[in-house]
């Protein structure tokens, strides 16, 4: 019975999002500081170092952490205000059960009542429908310790194959591409390589808004004379000063990369020695691009042929170069193709394994790197092992002290779990750190699916829009309430320190999982007194895998400001730069070229839906907004989604800036203000996705996925647009001034 117990207004009145305006005690309280805790920002995979100021078990402010080498004190607005997520009026303080007659639709229950209910429902559903009918969805804002524990918990305590995570919507195309071409899923370089590059090519990443700190690394390269290429459907803030802008049509990136490889070959801007000694299958890649001329690609991508030729020349003739790509090229049904085509350009010019050289994803979520390595994924065991590989299973069974047969097989990926819930084959769900009602494609379908669950339990610190569907809500912990590690987008394992303890009856996430395991009769596999013991088991479980953490102790991680994996033995210095000496992670040590043929996106524009839609983020909000939509000053920066469109399109539609428009796709429609700007392709509109319900951009996106990575196509859809009548009053976000006392 996993339907929201009350309507939206009543739920929001009780559980928010309300806006936290000021630190505990107010702005005038003065900063009485008991302790200052060195830790990291919870928002995004850059994992900037930050110091949290604590008074009386509340985080009351922050101080830049100048000595942490990655960001040297720098923060984006989310980082500056991240401390305001604590001491929040919406914080869940005790376990709850769905009860439409209770205020807000949920009544407080004891931990015993809540956990007994969860366990009895798990048992009932698994006995009635089979073990795999109870699924688990997790997320990578969690530490490595929790990610590892959840992988083990789902397999040994829940005994379900169906565990997956929200990195499925973020990093999996990059991960699959890197494994196929290079043999390992990690960014190839420490960020300190970026300033050493003679060309920086940013492909499908709005760095200024989603990874602001990376901007400073790019400028350090430019201060040395490096050239900057930006590939994006929008003139994003970083593009404004770029040397070359490639205004690519959504979904056409592999055509662009193909034409660049075509030009590299035509002009012989190739590193033949590197190709011969360190790669295989160059002929396949070359054959695939034989007909991909710049003129051909110009027709598909909308990028003038001369600019494609110029990009090839800049990349092909530079001694060093880095390409940084993110969700723009990855969140497509061709996500893996795009990543492989990008890697082809690096391999063809020998730009791997050397200072200032690499083709790298920019990991999105907080622990997007570490959280995708240790058994959090439906097909994976710790150390980035394969759950279908008998040797890998046997090794993990030994570490877990269980029979290999006790470890379930390969499960289904996140979106498929939601589809199977909708189809009625998955009946029960436990989720943590995942808000699929906002972040999954096709919002209406997702909400319908959750309604069909016979039982849904969530572990969370705020009641997210998905949590509103829950039968049982277990009050868990915030980032600053627990100790552990994460692994940043550079592949740097870093230490997360607890600043405060959970308020009220809320508990640490891992202790909740241990209690459920105990009640399921699987307690013998889950004897941990603290998260350090979990990490030490993770180190052992990862040993011998590609993501090898064996030598990374908490003490060294903290003392050395992080350690780069692989770190396969105690005392090993770590591996900041991968592939040095042209050694790739395959038995023959050679990287793989791939032949990437051109194909279209799952949905293309037509007479009925003639405009491309692409979605993304804004600088002041993080993912599904569960945290950042509750911080007043971040909300004030960009309070609601806007539909960015070019004046040419606006003229065709009879729309001026601020007019309300209705955007319709084959999945649904939404009405929102138009933001008429010259900085987007005239055939494309952009809508950020951080909001729920009627403001959810994912009402419009489709459930098509990449065949390899199973990444949904968030970046390409076909829509039509019409004036809705009326004008928004808050078109300029910065004119919305929240008054003191507004809660």
């Amino acid at each position, binding site marked *: 019975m996993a339907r929201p117990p009350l309507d939206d207004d009543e739920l929001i009145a009780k559980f928010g999002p309300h806006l936290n305006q*000021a630190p505990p005690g*107010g*702005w*005038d309280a003065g*900063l009485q500081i008991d302790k200052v805790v060195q830790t990291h920002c919870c928002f995004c995979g850059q994992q900037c170092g930050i110091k949290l100021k604590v008074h009386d078990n509340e985080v009351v402010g*922050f101080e*830049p952490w*100048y*000595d942490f080498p990655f*960001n040297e*004190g*720098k*923060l*984006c*607005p989310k*980082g*500056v*205000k991240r401390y305001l997520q604590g001491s929040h009026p919406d914080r869940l303080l005790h376990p709850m059960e769905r009860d439409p007659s209770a205020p807000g639709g949920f009544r407080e229950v004891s931990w015993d009542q809540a956990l007994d209910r969860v366990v009895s429902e798990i048992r009932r559903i698994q006995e009635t429908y089979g073990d795999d009918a109870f699924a688990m969805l997790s997320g990578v804002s969690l530490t490595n310790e929790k990610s590892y524990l959840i992988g083990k918990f789902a397999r040994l305590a829940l005994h379900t194959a169906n565990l997956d995570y929200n990195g499925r919507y973020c990093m999996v195309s990059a991960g699959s591409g890197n494994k196929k071409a290079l043999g390992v899923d990690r960014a190839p370089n420490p960020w300190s390589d970026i300033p050493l590059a003679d060309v920086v090519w940013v492909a499908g990443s709005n760095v*200024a*808004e989603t990874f*602001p*700190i990376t*901007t*400073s690394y790019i*400028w*350090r390269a430019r*201060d040395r004379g490096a050239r900057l290429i930006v590939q994006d459907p929008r*003139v*994003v*803030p*970083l*593009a*404004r*000063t*770029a040397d*070359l*802008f490639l*205004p690519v049509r959504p979904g056409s990136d592999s055509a662009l990369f193909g034409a660049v490889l075509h030009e590299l070959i035509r002009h012989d801007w190739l590193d033949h020695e590197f190709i011969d000694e360190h790669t295989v299958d160059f002929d396949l890649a070359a054959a695939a691009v034989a007909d991909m001329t710049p003129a051909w690609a*110009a*027709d598909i991508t*909308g*990028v*003038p*042929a*001369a*600019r494609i030729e110029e990009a090839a020349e800049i990349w092909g003739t530079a001694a060093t170069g880095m390409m940084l790509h993110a969700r723009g090229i990855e969140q497509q049904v061709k996500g893996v193709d795009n990543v492989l085509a990008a890697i082809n350009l690096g391999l063809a010019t020998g730009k791997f394994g050397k200072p200032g050289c690499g083709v790298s994803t920019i990991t999105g979520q907080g622990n997007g790197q570490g959280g995708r390595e240790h058994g959090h994924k439906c097909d994976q065991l710790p150390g980035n092992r394969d759950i279908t590989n008998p040797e890998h299973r046997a090794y993990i069974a030994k570490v877990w002290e269980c029979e290999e047969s006790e470890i379930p097989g390969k499960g289904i990926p996140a979106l498929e779990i939601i589809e199977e819930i909708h189809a009625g084959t998955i009946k029960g769900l436990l989720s943590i750190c995942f808000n699929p009602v906002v972040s999954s494609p096709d919002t209406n379908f997702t909400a319908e699916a959750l309604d069909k669950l016979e039982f849904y339990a969530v572990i969370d610190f705020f009641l997210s829009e998905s949590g509103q569907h829950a039968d049982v809500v277990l009050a868990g912990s915030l980032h600053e309430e627990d100790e552990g590690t994460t692994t940043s987008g550079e592949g740097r394992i870093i230490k997360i320190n607890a600043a405060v303890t959970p308020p009220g009856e809320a508990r640490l996430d891992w202790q909740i999982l241990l209690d459920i395991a105990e009640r399921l009769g699987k307690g013998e596999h889950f004897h941990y007194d603290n998260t350090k013991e979990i990490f030490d088991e993770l180190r052992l479980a990862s040993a011998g895998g590609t993501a090898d953490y064996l030598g990374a102790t908490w003490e060294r991680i903290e003392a050395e400001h992080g350690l780069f994996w692989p770190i396969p033995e105690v005392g090993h210095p770590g591996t900041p730069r991968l592939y040095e000496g042209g050694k790739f992670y395959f038995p023959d040590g050679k990287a793989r070229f791939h032949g990437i043929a051109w194909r279209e996106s799952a949905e293309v524009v037509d007479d009925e839906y003639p405009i491309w839609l692409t979605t993304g983020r804004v*600088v*002041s909000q993080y993912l599904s907004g569960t945290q950042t939509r509750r911080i007043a*000053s*971040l909300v004030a*920066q960009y309070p609601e989604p806007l539909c960015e469109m*070019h004046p040419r399109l606006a003229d065709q539609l009879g729309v001026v*800036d601020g007019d309300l428009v209705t955007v319709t796709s084959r999945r649904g429609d939404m009405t929102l203000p138009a*933001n008429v*700007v*010259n*900085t987007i392709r*005239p055939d494309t509109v952009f809508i950020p996705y951080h909001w729920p319900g009627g403001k959810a951009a994912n009402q419009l996106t489709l459930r098509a996925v990449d065949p390899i990575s199973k990444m949904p196509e968030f970046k390409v859809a076909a829509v039509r647009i019409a004036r809705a009548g009326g004008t928004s009053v808050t078109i*300029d976000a*910065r004119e919305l001034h929240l008054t003191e006392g507004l809660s």
Partner: protein
Amino acid sequence: MKRSRYGIDDSPIFVIDQSRCIGCEACVQACEECGTHRGKSLIHLERIDRATSTQTAPMVCMHCEDPTCANVCPADAIKQTEGGIVQSALKPRCIGCSNCVIACPFGVPKYVAEFDQMMKCDMCTDRTSDGYAPMCASVCPSEALWYGTPEEFRDTRSGSLLDNWLFGRQNVHTKVFTVVDDLAGGPLDALSTATGTWLDDPFGLEAAR
């Protein structure tokens, strides 16, 4: 812990390079966290013309050697520190007339009705006097706002530093620097059409493909 490379004898300077601004507002959010005016952000961040560009521009007080705001203040409420930092109007003296708001050539002072007082950037006196960088320059992710020594700037950054302005016949020397491409290159020809960059036609709408 102090940032050793900004030791007290090192005389750090404050630099604004508007061209690097990404409009993220980290500075606006961090200014609000400064100990001397917590809860009140005093930095300016302007969106120049969002309809045509993502260009944004941050503006801290330039801390003029001979501050116009102080010169036009009828209540003698605006004072400079020995280090040349121009401060917010003294609360007991400020009459809220806003002469300073109108006269400042950089548009920096803000009249805050809530306190009936002119408030402005004080270069985070609480931090800089203690050897720390101001809040905005500490957090700025693109280093559009930057705090360090002139030597460090020359060693690591491109562009020339500018601290000398002409507003009509008024010559203004500032403590804060801005960055221009090449100071020796002579005056900028704002009407020049010779550049021919992709910015003239970002999406290739005019050019034949």
